[in-house]
């Protein structure tokens, strides 16, 4: 193929999408390499708008297919018969964990990656998050502060379209928001109670990447308003939620500077020791197994945290025998995910004459309150809650005895309002949580497969306990009855917020990337997906990946134009 590119971007998910947009809009000729097949916006959303009775098996995946092909992916709520083509087949894409230390690696290998599947919650990090490592000594100090990223949050929010309410909270900065979604009556009541009884806590509507009121910029890209179907993971031809396919890809395409190569797995990055630069990537055609080397002046790795780390570890040379840009030895270490599966739920006895209409693809959020203004003695850092109120429908029949007319009549009405809170907590960077290439086992393309070892440790376990206790306390003081606390201590991975294995830092001896997501060791190599994260905070991370990618892209182009690369 024509080999004359300014930049190669590996991976087309949220981060890769932003990289191609920002680089092509600045005039660079960009090659986007995606390991999975092409996905066509609209056409490939095979389950979109279909009622349950219009789907094969009413949407259920045949049991044998589920257990044989999706043994790991089936743990993800978004997997069903209408979305399974956006998830990897676990049998074809193995990785290794110790039997006692499971890690759920949820993946989508196609053009658009997991941007098609994400839950779309979008929160800024605050100054507190960027200084946490420095203050308590876990991990390395972030090489940036909130003020470095704030304008880039503005930039990505405006383009992506983030719905939310301005709250003036120090630990969860406001942004450029589209109108917020509506809370229902129980949520408004619980909000009132929590904020009255717990002065440092607030409950807000979730901030999410949905167009509640599209701007001219959104409409020009062919995007439209959210229709409240809450079937987003099947794809949305309105382009109402942010994905690579709805937003960044069409923006990059219209510059005419983009070339897309799908079904191409990046084996490794090629390094030229004489010039101390990466010169390109080696790719394998996933269908024909043909190998090829493609060159560019800039390489952006956006293949997802573990995907990027695997490529880097597999990029071995005399200079970098343990993986490219790994002179620090940090590559693959400090894997983090958010801790969750701890919280509480119960019933609200009132508002029986009230109901909702529409399926809101969003819930409520309680921003972090521990270790914000005061110091909690039990654990460091903090957690937030996601959740919401609803009236369950026929699905509550699972716990209703009886059959016949009375059962049917009971189910014609919705159940009592219920309200639930589930925590999302920060996991500390710890070098014992790590990934490495297997010495023997390779995938069907001959690439060494990943070993993953990641467990929850003392701080995380303490936090999970408090999450559940706090949730119970807040619900009970808000008039919720029959409150059931839970703490399932799920294995890591399933929050699908894995990050940290090629971290940013100030010191090249203890980190892989500098403050511009540029490899300390290889100036023209940039890594902007979740692997760059030096800590995990407790907010959903995608918005921060977007902002870091846009910032890194702008700086890379500047450095390129100044002849520094």
């Amino acid at each position, binding site marked *: 193929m024509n080999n004359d590119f300014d930049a190669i971007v590996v991976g087309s998910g949220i981060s890769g999408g932003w990289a191609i947009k920002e680089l092509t809009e600045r005039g660079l000729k960009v090659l986007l390499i995606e390991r999975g097949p092409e996905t066509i916006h609209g056409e490939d959303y095979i389950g979109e*708008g279909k*009622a*349950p*009775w219009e789907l094969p*098996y*009413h*949407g*259920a995946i*045949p*049991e*044998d297919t589920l*257990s044989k092909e999706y043994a790991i992916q089936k743990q993800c709520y978004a997997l069903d018969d209408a979305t399974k083509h956006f998830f990897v087949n676990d049998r074809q894409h193995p990785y290794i964990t110790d039997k006692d230390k499971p890690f759920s690696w949820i993946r989508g290998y196609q053009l658009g990656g997991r941007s098609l599947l994400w839950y779309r919650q979008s929160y800024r990090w605050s100054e507190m998050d960027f200084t946490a490592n420095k203050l308590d000594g876990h991990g390395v100090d972030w090489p940036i502060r909130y003020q470095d990223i704030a304008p880039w949050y503005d930039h990505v929010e405006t383009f992506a379209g983030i719905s939310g309410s301005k709250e003036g909270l120090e630990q969860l900065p406001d942004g450029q928001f589209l109108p917020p*979604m*509506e*809370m*229902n*009556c129980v*949520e*408004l009541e619980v909000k009132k109670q929590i904020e009255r009884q717990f002065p440092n806590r607030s409950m807000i509507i979730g901030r999410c990447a949905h167009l509640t009121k599209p701007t001219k910029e959104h409409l020009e890209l062919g995007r439209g308003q*959210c*229709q*409240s*179907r809450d079937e987003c993971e099947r794809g949305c031809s309105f382009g109402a939620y942010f994905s690579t396919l709805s937003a960044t890809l069409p923006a990059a395409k219209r510059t005419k500077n983009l070339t897309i190569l799908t079904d191409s797995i990046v084996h490794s990055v090629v390094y030229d020791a004489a010039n101390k630069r990466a010169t390109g990537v080696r790719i394998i055609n996933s269908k024909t197994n043909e190998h090829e080397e493609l060159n560019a002046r800039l390489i952006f790795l956006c293949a997802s945290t573990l995907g990027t780390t695997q490529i880097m570890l597999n990029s071995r040379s005399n200079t970098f025998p343990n993986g490219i840009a790994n002179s620090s030895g940090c590559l693959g270490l400090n894997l983090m995910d958010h801790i969750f599966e701890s919280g509480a739920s119960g019933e609200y006895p009132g*508002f*029986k*004459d*009230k*109901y*909702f*209409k*529409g*399926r*809101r693809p969003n819930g409520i959020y309680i921003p972090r309150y521990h270790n914000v203004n005061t110091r909690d003695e039990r654990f460091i850092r903090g957690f937030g809650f996601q959740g919401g109120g609803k*009236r369950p*429908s*026929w699905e509550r*029949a*699972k*716990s209703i*005895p*009886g*059959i*016949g*007319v009375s*059962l*049917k*009549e009971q*189910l*014609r*009405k*919705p159940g009592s309002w219920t309200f639930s809170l589930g925590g999302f907590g920060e996991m500390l960077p710890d070098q014992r949580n790590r990934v490495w290439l297997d010495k023997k086992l390779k995938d069907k393309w001959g690439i060494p497969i990943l070993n993953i070892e990641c467990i929850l440790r003392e701080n995380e376990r303490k936090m999970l306990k408090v999450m559940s206790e706090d949730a119970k306390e807040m619900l009970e003081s808000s008039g919720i009855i029959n409150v059931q606390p839970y703490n399932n201590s799920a294995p890591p991975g399933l929050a699908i917020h894995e990050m940290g294995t090629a971290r940013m830092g100030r010191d090249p001896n203890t980190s892989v990337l500098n403050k511009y997501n540029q490899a300390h060791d290889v100036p023209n190599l940039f890594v902007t997906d979740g692997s760059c994260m030096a800590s995990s905070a407790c907010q959903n991370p995608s918005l921060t990946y977007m902002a870091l990618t846009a910032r890194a892209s702008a700086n890379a182009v500047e450095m390129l134009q100044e002849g520094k690369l």
Partner: protein
Amino acid sequence: MLGVSIPLSQLEILASSFAAIKDEIKPQFLESKDFILLTQIADLVIPRTDTPGAIDAGVHGFIDMMLSQWASSETQSKYLAGFNYINKEAKLSFDANFIECTKGQKISILKRLDIRKESAKDQRQAFFVELKWFVITGYYSSKEGASIELNYDRMPGRYQGCLPFDEQGKAWSS
């Protein structure tokens, strides 16, 4: 009123037997004796009233299709064993196969088997609750159950969080 009062239970029988005859479905997986048993149970769990019941919605055919195409061989065996178990219970109590019992006898058997998984002694005892759940999910995800019995809105447009229930009158199916 016409001066004649027909008990509700008899009306149900009339409606239900009519439904069973009308919708004759050829099973793909079950033998006819098990398919009749499944059909009768589906009808007893969600009968036709002023709205369609499980048979009107084709739930018996749906479950048979699911057992044929969707279920693993373990699940298939579990269902066959489960139907046997229900017959065994019927024989113990009424000295007849389930489908030969009177409606009242059938209901008394199913009520006795309506035991939640946690309190069931073994998998066989928990079977009816699983079958009941299959009927319920099949019905409320069918066109009749989801959009006639309950409300279904393909394209809500926007979310409104606090409306008078009386304006809608029934639950959303999804």
